[in-house]
């Protein structure tokens, strides 16, 4: 028999988005039959009373108090469950004086207090990030700056300062790095190895690192630069320093560069470093051209999978044989099941580069694609708009994250959109990514599965087959592992692709054939 337990937090206020997020996560905990968080108003207490769940403690709650009710399954440890729910609330708790324990209040005191510390991660509001980063650099610390909204002038000054001091200035807006086998911010647990990565793209570098791992290779260092590093103004200061560092690193045999195409003058500068590196350098400039890379003696990669394969091959590693995915044949099977009028692919992504790679694969087949991150303003879709034709949305873009957590942490917005897209009779396939690893949601697939089931139900009741395609970016060493998350998707009838590149190819073939 299930048991009900509850706590009341006096005068505690959460915004509705946080409350809903906590409630969703709490309902996903093992042993929880149902969990409910609400303010202690008379009407909410009335609902609980009707359900037979109103305890004396809840009865005493007032309108300004937060009620947390947990109905635990038979045999569950109710106290432990309640502690987990309270923990969720604590992690969501807004800043309040004296509530949070801060061990070190300044970068300088942290550096002084931790023997051997040589790197600071700056994740404060963008308005103060530059000042904190400058202090860290002046204290002799490398910097990884997760903060965004930092002025480009500050970025240039900080990178020049770091360069002069022989330090790294990774960022601003740098979300991924693996330094000495420690993943920082959003990163995956990959095997240590001989492939060094310098990247101006967060999920792009995550993808290359997990593919290298899957192919039997390992990562020596993954150095993030921040998305603006290869712009004309910043001039690739960090990427050049990163290449030089890896060229001098005895543990690195092969270097991989990941970025959107750089400004022409910066590309020239970067390729000069490629030529001088003295080691093989694989260059994946997303949507970039081969000619200049080859002329500089670099190894051009057209996609993320090719970048990883070339890197592993150049490192002399023979990994497990990988069966080539016949995207054309698989797409033909899907399209044969579609109803009249189902012709479009809708991509709903957490990772910007993963979105880019699939979107460009479809666009390169000569099809029109709409997106919130489209370079062509004629095909740009603002975040609040309904989908149109083949649509690819990056939910991690600023448009969607303004005032909300990144979808890799809180997938609620994307979950709503999945159900919405399923109701569109023109939709043939929904394509998704799930990003695992440090910093990400603890069970992104599990929290999305109810919406996937609902999407399929909506299509089925309308007499349509809805193809759901998903790629899980992660490794067997991540928690949860890529294997467990992929199995859960397959069990729900989702087609699971094995790389970002494969996802793009499959989406392209479905789009081509469905629209033919």
């Amino acid at each position, binding site marked *: 028999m299930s048991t009900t337990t509850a706590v009341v937090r006096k005068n505690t*206020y959460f915004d509705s988005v946080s409350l809903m997020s906590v409630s969703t996560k709490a309902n996903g905990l093992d042993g929880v039959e149902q969990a409910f968080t609400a303010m202690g108003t008379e009407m909410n207490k009335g609902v609980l009373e009707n359900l037979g769940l109103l305890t004396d403690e809840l009865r005493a709650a007032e309108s300004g108090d937060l009620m947390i009710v947990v109905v635990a399954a038979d045999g569950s440890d109710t106290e432990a469950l309640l502690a987990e729910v309270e923990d969720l609330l604590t992690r969501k708790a807004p800043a309040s004086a004296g509530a949070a324990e801060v061990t070190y209040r300044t970068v300088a005191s942290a550096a002084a207090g931790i023997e051997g510390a040589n790197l600071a991660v700056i994740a404060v509001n963008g308005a103060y990030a530059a000042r904190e980063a400058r202090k860290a650099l002046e204290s002799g610390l490398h910097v990884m700056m997760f903060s965004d909204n930092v002025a480009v002038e500050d970025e240039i000054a900080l990178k020049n300062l770091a360069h002069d001091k022989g330090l790294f200035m990774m960022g601003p807006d740098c979300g991924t790095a693996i330094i000495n086998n420690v993943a920082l911010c959003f990163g995956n647990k990959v095997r240590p190895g001989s492939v060094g990565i310098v990247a101006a793209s967060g999920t792009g570098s995550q993808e290359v690192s997990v593919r290298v791992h899957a192919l039997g290779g390992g990562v020596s260092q993954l150095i993030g630069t921040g998305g603006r590093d290869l712009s004309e103004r910043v001039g690739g200061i960090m990427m050049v320093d990163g290449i030089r560092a890896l060229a001098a690193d005895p543990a690195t045999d092969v270097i991989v560069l990941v970025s959107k195409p750089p400004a022409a003058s910066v590309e020239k500068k970067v390729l000069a470093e490629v030529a001088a590196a003295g080691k093989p350098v694989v260059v994946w400039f997303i949507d970039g051209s081969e000619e200049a890379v080859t002329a500089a003696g670099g190894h051009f990669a057209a996609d993320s999978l090719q970048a990883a394969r070339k890197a592993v091959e150049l490192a002399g590693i023979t990994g497990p044989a990988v069966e080539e995915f016949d995207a054309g044949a698989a797409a033909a099977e899907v399209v044969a099941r579609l109803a009249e009028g189902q012709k479009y692919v809708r991509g709903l992504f957490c990772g910007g580069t993963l979105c880019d790679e699939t979107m460009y694969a479809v666009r390169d087949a000569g099809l029109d694609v709409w997106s919130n991150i489209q370079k062509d303003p004629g095909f740009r879709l603002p975040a609040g708009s309904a989908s149109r034709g083949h649509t690819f949305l990056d939910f991690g873009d600023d448009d969607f994250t303004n005032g909300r957590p990144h979808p890799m942490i809180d997938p609620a917005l994307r979950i709503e959109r999945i159900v919405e897209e399923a109701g569109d009779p023109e939709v043939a396939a929904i394509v998704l990514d799930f990003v695992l690893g440090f910093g990400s949601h603890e069970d992104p697939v599990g929290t999305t599965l109810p919406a996937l089931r609902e999407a399929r139900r909506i299509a089925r009741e309308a007499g349509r087959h809805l193809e759901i395609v998903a790629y899980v970016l992660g490794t067997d060493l991540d928690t949860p592992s890529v294997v467990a998350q992929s199995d859960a998707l397959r069990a729900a009838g989702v087609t699971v692709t094995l790389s970002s590149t494969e996802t793009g190819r499959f989406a392209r073939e479905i789009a081509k054939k469905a629209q033919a």
Partner: protein
Amino acid sequence: MEDPIGAPSIPVLSGDGRLLDLLSSLRGTGSVHSVFTRVVNLLTPGGTLIALAARGSGDAPRTLVADVAAWSAYQLGAGLGVTFATGNIALDRSPALRRPLRLATAGARAWRPAAPSLAPLPPGALARAADAVARICRVHGPLGGMLGARPGAGPMEAAVVRALHTGRDLLLAGLRTGEEERTRDGVLALLGLGPGLTPAGDDFLTGLVLVAALPGSRLDGFPPLLRDLLAVRGDRTTALSLATLSEAAEGRVRSELLGLVALLAHGNPTGAGPAATGPRPGTAPAATPGGGPRPGELHASVREVLAIGHSSGGDLLSGLVAGLRLEEELRGPL
């Protein structure tokens, strides 16, 4: 401890004109009520709840929009003191920080919303507007409140949604027949119902009472009834919701919602900021015969309201749609 704040004071960019008027002569000590990433709520010396919103937020009743990206960096906390003086508000922070955070209200743009009238619209226009808004809500509206339970929702959420629908039906029946007792029961069945800080039932009431508070409404008996009820039964909901409802009963709501009503009234948004989202790319919106809102504009305006909170936008619009339909019904065919 080191102070993370560089600037001596933060300018308030815009604010509710009525609130700015009040602040110009307000002296004394209040307190911080609650702190969120983008909003900090304060209690004035008289106990009135007011909001400090971050840059980019829409104007709203009892709200000041300050030139900050977010409040998280400022180490503010519930219960800390707030000093109100001429031209500025000083917020105490963590005891380790000596300097308070000062907000300068001088120079803030005063937002003085004017509630438009829907009375001049021709017969059928209100019902058509309600249908158009409801259609967009059905496709884009978040579930979890008046629009229905989310897929896979547990018994508690399902029970809340059932109670919301029961309360809504009771209230609308009361308003339709003019029975005050039934109307009161309907309000009390919704007040404070739902999980959020502004419960879904209150959001519905806000949308509905806004229609009733517009000039020329046939539901003009509802705002005073609601105000009376709030005066004696305000403890049935949260302080924030009580403040929002009290203002809505005077036709004063957030700029996004008021912008939508203005769009329905005039075919163009007035008294509201520019819409955050435009029409779909490549589709030039066609003017609607008869001067109603253009489809692209309406879509963008509704989506702006839907973006409020988690399910608040959908619940506000459910109330608005119910109010528009009731207004049309009470007007009759002529």
